[in-house]
């Protein structure tokens, strides 16, 4: 294996252990929903840096554009109008890959090396190895990856692994004009989030908090939410995300069992061959059968 600029901790469909001696800083993106003005600079910067240009869509009467993530839109702004206690709130959330510590996409992926997790926490897709099965979409608790209609491969946010590898912040974070997006060591981001949450609480948002769901082992994209008790308000951000039990059933139990069954069949056949030998047909029986065929 080549020595990468970012150390790999996990590869999809691979059982050999990854090198784990070098310790690199765990990074995270913090999205402060309360500071976001929904300008979409992050969306534009993402497309620009990653050399992707989505099709020009049509207006659906709302600010969401495009309406959903696509293979060419790795991050989209979702605008939710929420009425609570007689107050209208405009909750804007930047949607995209959460870079889970326990990535469902990687666990579900059957193509070796198509999905990687780096030591710094980034979960990256390697489209050259992608077989386009779409299992990553099923495995993702946040419904993020999208298959491209052009090449049949899955795409999603890479947290600009190419920028992070050379010590730069992702393109979206660099662009953000209000500072709603922050990037740094995960530790640091948690401290910053605490400050923001404290500030929000002092302004009347008692339930403000950090979204770093433990169901997926924590994420490397975290949110500061003013209503941390109700993440669903923010365009259906899952309350308690976790990898579907079907993924662990398939990869954890069913696959080894099937392998065992196959190995058993192979071993049984070998024993059968050694003890019984090939099926010999006696000369008499053969002659008899030939006679029958002749009739």
């Amino acid at each position: 294996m080549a020595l990468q600029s970012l150390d790999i901790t996990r590869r999809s469909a691979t059982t050999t252990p990854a090198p784990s001696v070098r310790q690199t800083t765990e990074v995270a993106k913090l999205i402060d929903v309360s500071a976001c003005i929904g300008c979409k600079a992050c969306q534009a910067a993402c497309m620009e840096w990653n050399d992707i240009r989505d099709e020009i869509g049509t207006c659906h009467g709302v600010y969401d554009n495009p309406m959903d993530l696509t293979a060419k839109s790795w991050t989209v702004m979702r605008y939710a109008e929420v009425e609570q206690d007689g107050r209208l709130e405009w909750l804007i959330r930047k949607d995209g890959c959460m870079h889970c510590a326990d990535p469902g996409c990687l666990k579900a992926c059957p193509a070796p090396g198509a999905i990687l997790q780096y030591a710094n926490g980034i979960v990256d897709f390697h489209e050259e190895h992608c077989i386009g099965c779409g299992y990553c979409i099923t495995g993702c608790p946040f419904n993020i990856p999208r298959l491209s209609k052009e090449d049949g491969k899955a795409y999603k946010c890479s947290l600009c692994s190419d920028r992070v590898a050379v010590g730069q912040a992702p393109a979206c974070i660099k662009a953000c004009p209000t500072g709603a997006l922050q990037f740094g060591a995960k530790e640091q981001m948690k401290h910053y989030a605490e400050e923001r949450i404290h500030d929000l609480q002092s302004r009347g948002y008692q339930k403000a908090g950090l979204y770093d769901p433990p169901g997926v082992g924590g994420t490397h994209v975290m949110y500061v939410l003013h209503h941390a008790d109700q993440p669903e308000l923010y365009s259906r951000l899952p309350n308690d995300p976790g990898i579907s039990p079907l993924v662990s059933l398939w990869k954890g139990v069913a696959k080894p069992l099937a392998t065992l069954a196959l190995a058993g069949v192979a071993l049984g056949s070998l024993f059968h061959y050694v003890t019984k030998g090939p099926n010999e047909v006696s000369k008499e029986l053969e002659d008899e059968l030939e006679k029958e065929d002749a009739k």
Partner: protein
Amino acid sequence: MQVTRRQFFRVCAAGMGSSSVVLMGFSPGNALAEVREFKLTKATETRNTCPYCSVACGVLIYSLGDKSKNAQSRIFHIEGDPDNPVNRGTLCPKGAGLLDMVQSPNRLKFPEVREPGSTEWKRISWDDAMARIAKHMKTDRDANLIEKNADGVTVNRWNTFGFLASSAASNEPGYLTVKTLRALGVVALDTQARI
């Protein structure tokens, strides 16, 4: 093709056996994995100012090549300038998408003139454009400059002319713009950024 019963079993057994072996993890995998190469490593970096609004954010423009004689440079990436005190690296969505404005087929790339009564835009050189504008300004100023008002106070107003300054101008060009135009007596002075 004629396949005997025995051949059929052989093919099946071989296929089953090899797929089982692969499933059990005996297949050689190509383990190469690499993050995308950082695309700006040897690009030419040029400082500039975003042309859109009066905030005048600093941008870094990255172009192909190292300016050597035979390399035709072409802008392929633009991002915020972290050393610019105005935006410290950040950009708005329009600024973040500047690259597509630079490369747009609809972008105006040279001076054009539409003569009075004509419907056609005609391409002219920068020298011609400057000379033409200067001549028009001189003619108009000579005809319309108000040197004194009704009370006889010297005012030197040139009310028939307006100037739209560049939004990309920072403090120093802005100072020079105002100084030059006010010296000419221009009152209607504004900046493109406010459109």
